[in-house]
């Protein structure tokens, strides 16, 4: 084993990688031609890293190709902009277009979005799996029973547990008390972490290596089993010969604006190509690779979320505690909404705090008393994913009227809870409602706001669909065995194959589905449908 960083001594999992296990496109000289592996995995996020690890565990040789850089734990800083420019797609400026612009948060680094999310572990709700069976014909292939051993294994591997008392934080503590006072069952978040110190820095990368993102878990574990990582390499297309996926062509990338000319990377896959590039990038990669399924890029869904901020009469201190420490699923089925907490970094809080000039400064000075609670909607609206003229990705989506209605009710509920928890003022962030409301009587203004998406400040974090799974090639992109209907040996294992959204944080479902797929592929349970 060779030390990847010579100084100081290893402390985090990602400090040490086997000699020659990483080819870094930012610094690699010359082209990489015809590296040959059993499987090439595109993407190193929740889906790709887990698939790569499972395949490597089965004894297969594996290449992981990741578009972004590998930012190591000891490089993580406090600055949100520093994280945006190095680890987020489009430096954090990506948006969904529709009747309004909805910011879209995606990681673009080794570990993908697991580097900056809150590592929340929710098993796929059984009512969702039942719906997939009933409406999308996945019965028998994707079941709670089939997923259970994978959930069990992932929970063990990644230390999933409820947030410990000493890392909970006052923002989450107040939420739990208030939700229960409202008769809403609420729980501490289950997360993958080991040794969380409550730094409230999940969003910019855990500086303690406690959060079990893929950058410190399945990626280094796969490398230890012999896998090779090509980071800062963007896959341009999957190479298809005689109806079968046989490799990928990629180009080196850089996060630096004045980077050198890209170099070509060509990797051969003897047994298959596993696409796990995310709901946005996977369908466009398949399109660039020549797939033309009618449903490719269709049925995009998400969980739009809105954060409600309140100024309390006592310290909240969002700078301490689990970034997302508490939640309530009480209204997930009845109202399609989920309530949770969020420790917002000061840079984003300064945007969320209403006003400009002296008014903003006075409120910002009370940052230690600021609390943020979030409502996410299991939105029914569907959108599309297409390539944009610039070569980037174009996502079109507009929330449906019923989604707006649910969002409005969820926000009103959170506002009431905040006032009852002692908020002096609440900032709804809704156009048409005063920027600050000062009493519970004014919450009705939220209930009355026009259901216009342009009035709301949604953010999209959980993304689904666009390469939908199903048995019918006319209505889906991949079969229930994760293999593309059009190309043998081409598998899609990320949340783009999910027939619907979930209503809960999806990382656990993505990883379990991916592990299920990789296990079946490695065991030879998936047969080519197209003759090679």
């Amino acid at each position, binding site marked *: 084993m060779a030390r990847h960083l010579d100084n100081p001594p290893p402390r985090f999992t990602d400090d040490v990688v086997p000699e020659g296990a990483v080819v870094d496109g930012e610094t690699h000289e010359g082209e990489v031609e015809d590296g040959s592996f059993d499987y090439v995995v595109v993407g190193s996020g929740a889906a790709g890293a887990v698939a790569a690890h499972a395949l490597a565990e089965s004894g297969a040789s594996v290449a992981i190709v990741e578009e972004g850089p590998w930012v190591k734990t000891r490089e993580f800083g406090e600055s949100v902009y520093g994280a945006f420019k190095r680890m987020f797609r489009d430096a954090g400026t990506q948006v969904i277009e529709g009747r309004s612009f909805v910011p879209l948060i995606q990681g673009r680094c080794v570990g993908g979005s697991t580097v900056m999310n809150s590592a929340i572990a929710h098993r796929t709700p059984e009512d969702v799996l039942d719906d997939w069976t009933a409406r999308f014909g996945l019965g028998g292939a994707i079941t709670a029973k089939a997923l259970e051993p994978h959930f069990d294994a992932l929970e063990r591997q990644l230390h999933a547990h409820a947030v410990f008392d000493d890392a909970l934080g006052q923002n989450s503590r107040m939420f739990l008390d208030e939700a229960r006072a409202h008769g809403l069952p609420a729980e501490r978040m289950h997360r993958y972490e080991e040794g969380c110190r409550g730094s409230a820095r999940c969003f910019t990368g855990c500086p303690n290596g406690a959060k079990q993102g893929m950058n410190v878990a399945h990626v280094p574990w796969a490398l230890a089993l012999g896998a090779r990582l090509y980071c800062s390499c963007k896959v341009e297309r999957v190479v298809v010969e005689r109806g079968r996926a046989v490799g990928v062509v990629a180009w080196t990338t850089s996060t630096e604006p004045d980077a050198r000319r890209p170099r070509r990377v060509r990797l051969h896959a003897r047994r298959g190509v596993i696409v796990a590039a995310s709901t946005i990038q996977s369908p466009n990669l398949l399109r660039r690779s020549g797939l033309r399924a009618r449903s490719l890029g269709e049925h995009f869904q998400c969980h739009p979320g809105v954060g409600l901020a309140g100024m309390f009469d006592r310290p909240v201190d969002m*700078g*301490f505690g689990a970034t997302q420490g508490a939640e309530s699923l009480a209204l997930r089925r009845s109202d399609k909404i989920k309530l949770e907490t969020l420790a917002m970094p000061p840079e984003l809080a300064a945007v969320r705090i209403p006003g400009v000039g002296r*008014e903003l400064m006075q409120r910002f*000075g009370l940052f230690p008393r600021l609390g943020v609670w979030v409502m996410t909607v299991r939105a029914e609206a569907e959108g599309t994913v297409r390539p944009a003229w610039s070569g980037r990705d174009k996502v079109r989506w507009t929330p449906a009227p019923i989604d707006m209605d649910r969002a409005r009710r969820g926000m009103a509920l959170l506002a009431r809870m905040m006032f009852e928890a002692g908020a002096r003022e609440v900032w709804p962030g809704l156009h048409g409602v005063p920027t600050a409301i000062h009493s519970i009587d004014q919450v009705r203004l939220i209930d009355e706001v026009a259901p216009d998406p342009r009035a709301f400040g949604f953010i999209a974090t959980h993304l689904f669909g666009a390469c939908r799974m199903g048995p019918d090639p006319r209505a889906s992109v991949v079969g229930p065995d994760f293999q593309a209907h059009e190309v043998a040996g081409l598998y899609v294992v990320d949340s783009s194959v999910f027939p619907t959204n979930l209503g809960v944080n999806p990382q656990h479902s993505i990883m379990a589905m991916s592990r299920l797929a990789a296990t079946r592929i490695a065991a030879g349970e998936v047969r080519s449908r197209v003759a090679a």
Partner: protein
Amino acid sequence: MKLTRFEMAWAVAALVGVFPGSVDTGFASIASMDVPGFLGEALRRIPLRAALGLRAAIWIVAFAPLPTLGRFRTIARLGQADRERVLARLAASNSYAVRSLVMMLKTFGALLYAADDGVRARIEIPAVTANIVPLRVRRVQAA
């Protein structure tokens, strides 16, 4: 994409309108930070469309004193109180495009302003340069 000297002056004036700092609040003004360096670097990194949006925001704010205050001068030629009036009206505009672009400008300002070590010290948050967070097992007591 690069901003012209005039555009940069408008951008700095607008951001000072948003984040002026003051003695009574204990905050420094964003004017004391490297706004041109930050915006210049950001504009080289972000996609073209986002850069065009930011540039549009700067132009809207620059010439907003005329429609909002009836004054024929740019934002850079206004005093702080008038800048705040202009920006507050734009932020509450009925035009979705206008208020979204102004919010975008505020966002870029916030990314610079709230990353400043002095600002963070004022709100009791560790400096951006603090890479490894010391163990802080403590509770916030209710008042």
